[in-house]
């Protein structure tokens, strides 16, 4: 766990412990994070984007290094606001998540995202997913309202069953919507969640407007 804001860090550490996770290290900057990951080889690193010394995107840069040096460690980035500059290439890759900080107090959702990312899946904050989907006007124009909702949840990293639960639909209906979306957008669905997310994110072109 890496965050320079001590109160938040300690609070989250306690929260994680109470949820049954083991926190092997809690640090306050990017360099300490690199060392801690090398020492403990954890399942997941939870990283604040803004950290000393620059108070800019140190966390995001450290995340890129971790992905290169320790591909087995999943990464969950946290930030106070959407800031994609340094982590665009990580979005949609397996074992990567990006959430706004206030998500952590929605305990169940947060725990769900955490386990998903640690297990090699994806998690994108709904706000980020929404802005990605809506930025692609051509996608919105050809999809139905329901299909846009499904697409956003896919971008967030959810599996079909979870999407069905959230939308109050049957699994089969969700699958039908998914087929329709992927056909309309000419995307390839190979069934694995993170590849779907990658395909969607690549299509939505997070790298530009």
């Amino acid at each position: 766990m890496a965050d320079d804001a001590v109160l938040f860090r300690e609070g989250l550490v306690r929260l994680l412990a109470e949820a049954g996770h083991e926190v092997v290290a809690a640090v306050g900057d990017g360099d300490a994070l690199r060392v801690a990951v090398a020492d403990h080889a954890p399942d997941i690193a939870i990283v604040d984007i803004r950290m000393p010394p620059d108070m800019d995107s140190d966390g995001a840069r450290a995340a890129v290094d971790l992905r290169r040096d320790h591909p087995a460690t999943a990464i969950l980035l946290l930030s106070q606001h959407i800031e994609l500059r340094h982590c665009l290439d990580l979005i949609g890759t397996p074992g990567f998540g990006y959430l706004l900080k206030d998500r952590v107090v929605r305990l169940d959702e947060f725990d769900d995202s955490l386990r998903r990312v640690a297990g090699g899946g994806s998690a994108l904050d709904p706000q980020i997913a929404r802005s990605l989907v809506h930025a692609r006007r051509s996608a919105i124009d050809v999809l139905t309202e329901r299909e846009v909702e499904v697409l956003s949840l896919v971008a967030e990293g959810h599996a079909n069953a979870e999407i069905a639960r959230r939308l109050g639909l049957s699994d089969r209906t969700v699958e039908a919507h998914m087929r329709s979306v992927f056909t309309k957008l000419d995307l390839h669905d190979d069934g694995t969640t993170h590849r779907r997310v990658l395909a969607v994110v690549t299509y939505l072109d997070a790298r530009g407007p």
Partner: protein
Amino acid sequence: MPAASRTLTVGATLVVGAAVLTSPSAGAALMNLTLTVAIVIGWLIVVRRPDSPVGPALAWCGAAVAVSLTAEQLAAGAAGDLVASVMAPVWVGLWPVNLAGLLALLLVFPDGMLPGRLWRSVPWLFGLAAALVLAGLWGSVVVDGQVAGRDAAWRLPATAAGVVGIGLAMVLAVGSVVARFRRGDERIRDQLKWLLLAGALTVVLLVGGWAAELAGASVAAAYSPFVASIVVVVPAAVGVAVVRHDLLDIDRLLSEGAAWLVALALSAAVFGAAVVAVTQLLGHWTAIGPSLAAFVAALTLLPVHTYVHRGMARVIDRDRHVAVATVERFAADIRSGRREPEEIEAVLREAQGDPELRLLLADNGTWVGLDGVRRDDVRDGEAGPGGIVLESGDVPVARLDLARDTARARRRAAALLRAGWVPIEVSRLRLGLRQSQARLAGVAAEERVRLERDLHDGVQQRLVVTALRLRLLQRRVPDEHGGELDAAVGELLDAVEELRRLAHGVRPSRLDDGLGPALASVAAASPVPVDLAVADELPDVDDARTHAAFMTVTEAVANALKHARASHIEVAVEGARDRLRVSVRDDGTGGASGLVTLRDRVRSVGGELTVESPVGGGTTVTALI
């Protein structure tokens, strides 16, 4: 040539020196002594300008007169009867010698003979004519003021032909001066104007002498100013013209001197006319006449002078008059909105005839160009060589650096600076305004970034931490209080969301990712389709400008949605050399007004906002930043 110049001048000096030393009377000695002025100034020119033929010519102006005077004295018996008997037949016909020096001076002043056979033939014509006069008058004597010649049929026509020839030579010599003035460059004209000034003064003094003689003054008193002018003022003017032609503002001397003279003459005429009119009216002489006439003359003097002065300036000092008029016309064009004051440098270059001239503006003790860029090659507060400073009170406002720096160029530049004072001062104030706007915009941009960070990392973080602690607490309290804590956490999360929106209004943090992603989120939030086209390569502009570009889009989109009932919006961002061009086009009702705040915002970062909005034809808002 220098050696010949010196030899000729030495000759002239010896002639005048001999004339002075051999003067038979004190009066004659005084007369000869005045001729030494020409010799002295001739030497001065020879020393300072060894190549100039003007020195010897001037010296011989004096020497020729000395020759003539000495011949007359010798003929009168000053050196004994023997010499007198030799000189007697000669001297009556020797008077053309008096003019020889003047002729030479007119032909060579200020820079040597003019090229061409015509001008070269003038001295020969003069020599021939002088010889004819000498032959025609050989042996004549003056008796009681009448020339009594010897009788011979050929003598009278020969003399007459000689006089005509000399007159023609003198007319040609004056013509060469005119031709020189017409062909000459600025320097030659300046030099000739000195001669013109001295010549005009001499003529005025001659006319004054006539008037004084008519009024009853003695001949000596009446004409002595005239003689002094010939022997002192003319040589002095020639000397100044050759050695230091830009010593004084000759144009102004000429035009102002002439203007006062003409104005004086006109008001004297008015005076005389008024006296006559009053006397006629009353039928007899009365003291009222002159009093009234003086009053009328005084009233007319000043306006007449102003009018004449302007006319004279146009004739004599044409170049400067035209140059100043160019700048004044430019100032008038600014008042009527046809031109921008910042064009002043180009106008000054044209008016001054100096394409490398530079106008610098004072900016807190340093000099900056019209573009606001500091000129480091200029030392603070100093005019330096080629620099003229324009001051308002004691405070320097601007300076002109001349590439062509002469005393004359400086005088003209000073006049142009005075004429261009208002455009220069306006340019300076506008530059100051732009700079202070840019500084304020920069400070505001920094402030917004800081505020946004403080909101996110400060207040927002603490709200999240508080929510987190409530969650931790929730596990330790009985379940019946759980709902209340849930509600409290929900409130906090709403507050976080609201704070995020507020911070976005201060400065959208998506701008950190670049203008494109930030605009994508604007497009995403719009309820009507927004086509967003952002060029791959955008000019590198600072945060204040990026933010202004972002604001342009958000404001224009909001305007299209709120007022224009648009159903489709196109947003385009591209580079236009080193500027950002942002345009927002909608298909709404058009007729948009306002956007004043946005215009100010764009201007504050040095940009321009244009709004095209015909009624019923949609609205296009374009910002160049």
